[in-house]
């Protein structure tokens, strides 16, 4: 921890820039602690809040712009790839699109406050072919609000942060072990939740080959196409016999006469 503070003091703004850029490009190195500490140090006059904030916003916009361009180039496939490596792949694409459907470009203003959505929102905006100018404006404001909140928190709680850092510093390597264990616990908890969810549903995912076999054998499972409206507009195809249900209300209405014992297969993009 002491090394982090020393590094922030020594390299200051470039370190904030690098940390924010790496996090926004998808490498799991959280930038919030760096921004909060930088904010606390700025309050004590050891760094400039303006430079810290400017470097964070520029780094964030550059990283997001790269994702935006990838989204524009490769469409929603880049989104599926990103979501596949997340801890909640089945809900990732759908949830992200739902935010976008509900809020449009305004979702970029709060995207960075929602874990996972931060990295997925820019390629989604690219895949939706929104204008680059509009994207950069909304993304810059969103980045400013996000980084500004962290720096402001650092400035506001600089006494408490100083005490906490001192305590962690006294713990030495134990502090590193403690923080690493905490992060590992969160990841393990997410995995456990996912495993429990799958077990509860008695599911192993069904492969496309298995589904084709079921349809060919006349087993006629209920196939639900649960893509969002935006996703349907992008790709107007569906698996034969699939029932389109883009909202919870539509799912409820479509399943009204289907007995609960009936197998259901659902898909997104």
């Amino acid at each position, binding site marked *: 921890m002491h090394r982090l503070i020393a590094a922030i003091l020594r390299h200051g703004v470039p370190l904030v820039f690098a940390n924010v850029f790496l996090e926004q490009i998808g490498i799991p190195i959280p930038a919030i602690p760096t921004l909060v500490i930088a904010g606390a140090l700025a309050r004590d006059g050891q760094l400039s809040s303006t430079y810290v904030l400017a470097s964070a916003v520029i780094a964030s916009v550059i990283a997001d712009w790269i994702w935006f361009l990838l989204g524009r180039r490769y469409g929603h*496939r880049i989104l*599926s790839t990103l979501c596949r490596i997340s801890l909640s792949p*089945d809900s990732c694409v759908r949830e992200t699109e739902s935010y976008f459907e509900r809020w449009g470009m305004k979702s970029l203003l709060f995207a960075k406050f929602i874990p996972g959505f931060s990295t997925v929102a820019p390629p989604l905006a690219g895949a939706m072919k929104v204008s680059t100018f509009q994207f950069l404006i909304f993304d810059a404001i969103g980045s400013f609000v996000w980084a500004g909140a962290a720096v402001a928190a650092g400035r506001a709680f600089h006494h408490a942060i100083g005490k906490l850092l001192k305590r962690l510093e006294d713990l030495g390597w134990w502090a590193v072990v403690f923080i690493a264990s905490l992060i590992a616990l969160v990841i393990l908890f997410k995995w456990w939740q996912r495993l429990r969810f799958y077990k*509860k*549903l*008695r*599911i*192993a*995912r*069904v*492969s*496309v*080959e298995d*589904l*084709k076999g079921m349809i060919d054998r006349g087993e006629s499972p209920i*196939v639900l*196409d649960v*893509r969002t409206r935006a996703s*349907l507009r992008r*790709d*107007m*195809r*569906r*698996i*034969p016999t*699939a029932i*389109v249900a883009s909202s*919870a209300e539509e*799912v*409820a209405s479509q*399943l009204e006469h289907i007995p*609960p*014992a*009936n*197998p*259901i*297969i*659902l*898909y*997104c*993009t």
Partner: protein
Amino acid sequence: MLIDRGYTEVRPLAGGLDAWVDAGYPVEELAE
């Protein structure tokens, strides 16, 4: 939501529509 309605045999399609299309299986066009 499906669990709340009593459905227990719910299985997501691995790879979704993209995997279905990539496998070369037939698709239907949705009406506007």
